[in-house]
């Protein structure tokens, strides 16, 4: 595969250098330089429209990389071919604000579908993995429910379970708590934090600054068309950030 490179440092899962992010030919972010290692928990913050989602979309190859270099889980995004994109996404767990579950099937079937779509064949192993991820996100016994029968927090846990199915190296979460109440949001963040402790990198786009103090971590800030890497937790500074 041309798009796979072995040049990334062994511990690095995302490496972006001098990259520009475009949305419909409009330049959103320029000169982006970011490196994220395995097991890191990183916030991506910024006002609405500053390019948080666009940066994440570029990382899972939903937006093309036009300028610069970016490597995610050993895939070079500047040369990645369309047929390789599904395989890149199998190495990334994606969590959405609006869940994007398959609404016509149960929780179990949602997760089994992902397994089938990503090449799982052994039914016994599939069931075993299904129970493992449901257990990890605290949804044991909820597998037979349809998505609409679950609360928002439970649906987001299903999405996280789905993201964990293929044991990804990194989880990209786009406003994972955006549709949830504060208490449920805290539960989801705690879950993501726990997952990061198992060695997976987590990149969470959010503007829920109340979570920073409880779960302080490295923060990337999108502002004025660029990304600033604090390399350390933003705590008091965040309270001064304009919140939409």
């Amino acid at each position: 595969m041309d798009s796979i490179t072995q040049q990334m440092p062994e511990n690095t899962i995302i490496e972006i250098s001098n990259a520009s992010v475009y949305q419909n030919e409009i330049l959103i972010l320029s000169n982006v330089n970011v490196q994220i290692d395995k097991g890191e928990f990183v916030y991506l913050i910024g006002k609405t429209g500053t390019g948080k989602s666009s940066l994440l979309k570029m990382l899972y190859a939903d937006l093309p990389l036009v300028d610069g270099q970016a490597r995610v889980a050993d895939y070079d995004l500047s040369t990645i071919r369309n047929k390789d994109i599904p395989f890149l996404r199998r190495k990334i767990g994606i969590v959405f604000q609006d869940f994007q579950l398959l609404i016509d099937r149960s929780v179990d079937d949602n997760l089994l579908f992902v397994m089938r779509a990503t090449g799982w064949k052994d039914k016994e192993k599939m069931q075993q993995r299904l129970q493992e991820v449901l257990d990890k996100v605290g949804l044991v016994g909820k597998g037979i429910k349809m998505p609409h029968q679950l609360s928002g927090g439970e649906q987001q846990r299903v999405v996280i379970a789905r993201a964990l199915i293929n044991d990804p190296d990194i989880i990209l979460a786009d406003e994972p708590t955006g549709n949830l109440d504060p208490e449920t949001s805290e539960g989801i963040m705690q879950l993501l934090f726990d997952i990061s402790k198992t060695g997976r990198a987590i990149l969470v786009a959010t503007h829920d600054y109340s979570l920073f103090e409880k779960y302080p971590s490295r923060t990337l800030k999108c502002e004025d068309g660029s990304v600033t890497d604090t390399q350390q937790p933003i705590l008091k500074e965040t309270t001064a950030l304009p919140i939409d």
Partner: protein
Amino acid sequence: MAGREDKYAKRRLKTSYLSTIVGVTLVLYMLGLLGLIVLHAKKLSDYVKENIGFTVFLNDDVKDVDVIQLQKSLDARQYVKSTEYITKEKAAATYIKESGEDFVTFLGYNPLPSSLEVRFGADFANSDSLKILETELLKNKSVKEVSYQKSLVSAVNENLRKISLIILGFSCLLLIIAIALINNTIRLSVYSKRFLIRTMQLIGATENFIRRPFILKGFVQGIIGAMVAIILLVFTLYFAQKEVPELRELQDAALFIKLFVFVTLMGVIISWASTYLAVRKYLRIKTDYLYYH
């Protein structure tokens, strides 16, 4: 409560699936109905052409052996469907029966000539071909005269040509409408699942994996639609023949089977192609465009 919602969601999915099949069925039924009309029109046209009268009057002094030779020579030609030798006596008997007057007794002799009644295959029954045959036959010593209604042959052929053109034009139009309607029905069905396709892409499913169930479903919908349409066509034929028994004369089982195979193929091909193209569109489209395309 949840169980009721679950049943409702499942019922909605089934209704959507059924309405697509109903749409496909109705369009294929219309297509098949036009096919039946075309087939019957063709058979009727052939029937009319094959029954155009062509009489070869023979000289009075013609010997039986010459008549038989001429008849055999005509029968041997591919375009001749049948010949019938009408003797002077048979001609007189027929005329007396039709007119009710015994002209032979009145005149004291039979003035009617013996003749050969010739019927042609539909493809040959046109003015030009008949004219050539007429010229050839008139050179034969046994032949006195050749009689057929030239103007009728021309009129029949001209009218049938016009009717055929109209039916052909109408068939093409309906075929386009059929393709457009089935395509639209299936596109709407796939459109309603565009976000599902998007989700599948984002979790790492390959295009083939996403496309496969849609294609299979489109194929099944095409087959079911075609089967139901064929059943409706058989019922239509049955009732039409019950009301107009003459239609049985035009019946041709082999052609009907070909029509049913055509309807099935159209159902499968249009459904398959529409599904393939509709899914491909949503596989290639940018996320933002999902909201207004």
